[in-house]
């Protein structure tokens, strides 16, 4: 059986969501191909009008576009950007980013849940970018989210799974796909997220800032595949089982 995951009614085999910001337009196509990515995010605010270089023209046909609402500071602005994305032909997927902190760019879970509810009702496949908080994640689920996208570390920091323990809780408790977004700096960290049971990983800065963007996209692809395979193989249990005590505590039980 094919190992896939679903977002709304859409099924995907690749578990690598690639960002398209922060690097040269000419490299997007090759990066997508080498990453084997089926979903590519784009910031609607980067899409230009007229005949100048438009990021939309550089994303290969056939991949699912995932516009994000970056630039939105609250639910209302996120909703407006999402509708605009649909109007300009970016499809029904939307990654909600509600950020009212220009320094750390941390998402506002409360506003994100509000936007999720409105957009889910309008038929969007809503993918909320959030701080890994279980209560807020449940709110997102109830609001109609298609997945949840907790951050591993502050965006752009390449610090990896700084929020690991909290993401684990989400993976355990939330039935929707949990996609680790932001902060993943190295393929090994992406691999670790997948071993933990994340449904997919999204990365941008780690690839955009690599010496060889195309090669790094490929490295991430293999790391994500390896992590997924390891998760399916069940490594977690092996690693977490300690050595058996020499005098078992329950040895006195006789009948």
């Amino acid at each position: 059986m094919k190992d896939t995951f679903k977002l709304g009614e859409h099924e995907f085999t690749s578990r690598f969501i690639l960002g398209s910001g922060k690097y040269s337009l000419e490299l997007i196509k090759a990066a997508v191909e080498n990453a084997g990515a089926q979903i590519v995010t784009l910031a609607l605010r980067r899409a230009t009008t007229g005949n100048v270089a438009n990021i939309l023209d550089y994303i290969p046909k056939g991949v699912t576009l995932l516009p994000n609402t970056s630039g939105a500071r609250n639910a209302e602005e996120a909703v407006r950007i999402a509708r605009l994305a649909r109007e300009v032909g970016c499809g029904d997927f939307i990654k909600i980013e509600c950020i009212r902190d220009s320094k750390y760019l941390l998402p506002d879970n409360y506003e994100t849940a509000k936007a999720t509810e409105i957009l889910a009702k309008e038929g969007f496949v809503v993918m909320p970018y959030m701080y890994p908080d279980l209560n807020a994640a449940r709110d997102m689920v109830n609001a109609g989210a298609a997945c949840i996208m907790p951050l591993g570390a502050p965006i752009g920091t390449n610090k990896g799974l700084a929020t690991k323990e909290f993401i684990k809780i989400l993976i355990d408790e939330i039935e929707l796909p949990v996609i680790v977004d932001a902060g993943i700096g190295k393929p090994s960290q992406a691999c670790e997220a997948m071993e933990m049971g994340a449904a997919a990983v999204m990365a941008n800065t780690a690839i955009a800032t690599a010496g060889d963007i195309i090669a790094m996209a490929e490295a991430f692809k293999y790391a994500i595949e390896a992590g997924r395979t390891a998760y399916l193989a069940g490594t977690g249990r092996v690693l977490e089982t300690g050595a058996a005590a020499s005098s078992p505590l329950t040895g006195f039980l006789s009948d």
Partner: protein
Amino acid sequence: MEEIKELDPKNRIDHMTYLPDMEVIDSDIDKKVVKAINDYDYTVFTAADVLEALKKDVLSYRDFQALLSPAAEPLLEQIAQRAQQETRKHFGNSVMMFTPVYIANYCENFCIYCGFNRHNKIRRAKLDFDEMKREFEAIAKTGLQEVLILTGESRKGSDVKYIGEACRLARKYFKVIGLEVYPMNSDEYRYLHECGADYVTVFQETYNSDKYETLHLAGHKRIWPYRFNAQERAILGGMRGVGFAALLGLDDFRKDGFATGYHAYLLQQKYPHAEIAISCPRLRPIINNDKINPKDVHERQLLQVICAYRLFLPFASITISTRESNMFRKHVIAIAATKISAGVSTGIGGHIEGEEAKGDPQFKINDNASVDYVYKEIEEMGMQPVMSDYIYV
């Protein structure tokens, strides 16, 4: 010869007292910045302080002070390397492009280093809306999607309504409209935001109010604290982002650089959603005074200041001006700056090929490169020119 009465100090108004029409807001940021500048003794820092600052993820204002100190100068290469990493983390290889559009050069102020000052004999002009339209069309053809609208500082010559109409017109051609006009009250900023503007830049010139007093002899601009609080009023008026700058070379550049960054830092702390931008202008020659120069702020010092801004405010947009040479600009975008102007004219009009500007320029620019040229140059450096990084909501 016209008699200039403000040349005599006794004829000048008090530069620290608000004029009757100036809005007073509840803010202590100016006091905090002034105290910090007064306490800043850059001679106490050593190379060890600088190296310590370079190891940190998040720099304190003391670290920022160390990076601006003379002790940091011999470590400039290391500082630049670290600044480049930080820039890449936050902006990847993107470089935003824009052009300034000067729509009027009438000015009521008397700032002795500025080409627009009211006593300087230059050709004054103001674009009417037809001329503006042609100007915008010419700029839009180059592919740019962001403009910065500038005027001289004259409420009579270019009133708020006129600037507002200019913004409405510009919005038909561009996605992002910034303003660099005289400081105003928050309700006026609100009006201009509704007209489509979303960024406000105000240069404080120098944060040393005693020095400021000797340079800005007349007009609204003379009131130091009203200018200082302009960014905060702009945010209160609903603007998304604000820009800061000291004109390096007017006074002690280390203290002015520190004050600029710390001002921006405190404002972002108070209004976390505010987007922060920093410009790094140095003094330039003007019409009727070829001798104006940035004194002790050589390219090396300028780069030190720019890198210190980047490390203290890693998320901030940093603009590099056409006051600098093409060579300097090109290299600094590879290190720390993230925004660059192109196809620049600081005269009134002047973006239409083959037509002379209607009014004289504010200062003499150093880099005349066209949009196309700068675009290609950015690409050749392995970076991506970005025309729009913004959505007006």
